[in-house]
């Protein structure tokens, strides 16, 4: 029962995050979508730890690693946004076509 609740909520959050990543045009908003998807993964991991293997601490460690990944993603993403904003004055992905070859 609890496992079903957690997994369904995580599935919905994952769907919302994916929708956000695809539909938003701003780099920072896209990062928010990614964070939401990672958060859904974390919820799954915690649910698996608690309800299936409460004595396997590698699962809790995995959650810590996912949190690290979230922080890394934010740091590198903001660095890219900063550089983009410096050189092009905008972080819209619609205006990033110059990243493509011969555009």
């Amino acid at each position, binding site marked *: 029962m609890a496992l079903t609740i957690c997994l369904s909520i995580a*599935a919905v959050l994952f769907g919302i995050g994916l929708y956000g990543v695809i539909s938003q045009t701003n780099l920072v908003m896209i990062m928010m979508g990614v964070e939401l998807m990672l958060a859904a993964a974390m919820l799954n991991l915690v649910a698996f730890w608690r309800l299936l293997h409460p004595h396997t601490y590698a699962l809790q*460690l995995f959650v810590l690693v996912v949190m690290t990944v979230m922080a890394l993603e934010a740091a590198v993403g903001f660095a890219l946004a900063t550089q983009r904003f410096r050189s092009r004055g905008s972080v819209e992905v619609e205006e990033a076509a110059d990243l493509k070859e011969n555009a």
Partner: protein
Amino acid sequence: MTPLQLLFLGVFGLAAIWFGWRVFRTKSMVRSALSLLAAMVALGGMFLALDAEFLGVLQIMMMAGEMSIMAFFMMMYMMDPGGMSSMNMTHQQRPAAAVGIGAGVLVLALALLTPWPPAQALAPSATQQNHDLGIELMTRSMMIFETAGTSILVAMIAAVATALAYPQQPD
């Protein structure tokens, strides 16, 4: 799991979904960053309801800083961070909705159709968890944890190197 825990799981979960949905449904960018923070805090509440006290508190603590910084960058790099004019910030709405719903339904179906083993009734106490997680970090999983630390260092260097201002090149 006690009925109270189940109730908290459901309430926090619905709150997380609601705030997660609000992130992409508001014009004000600071609002959407703070909505994401609220969704993350609701997830932290779910972790607490799942007896993972350390992870829950850690989640609640880390996300406060991360989402505030996100709000700050939003404000710096957006033309209309307050959402005062009605600027459209989205594209390819239909495919995005289709992919989002499709992936969500697929994951949901997987979650519901898999024959999960029966749930364990008891978890170790919070003090025991803190102790055992520490032992795990310092023995079997030390290498993984060290790698996480090193990758933070690498990301810090990479982020600073990427964000540095170079002198303007003549076109």
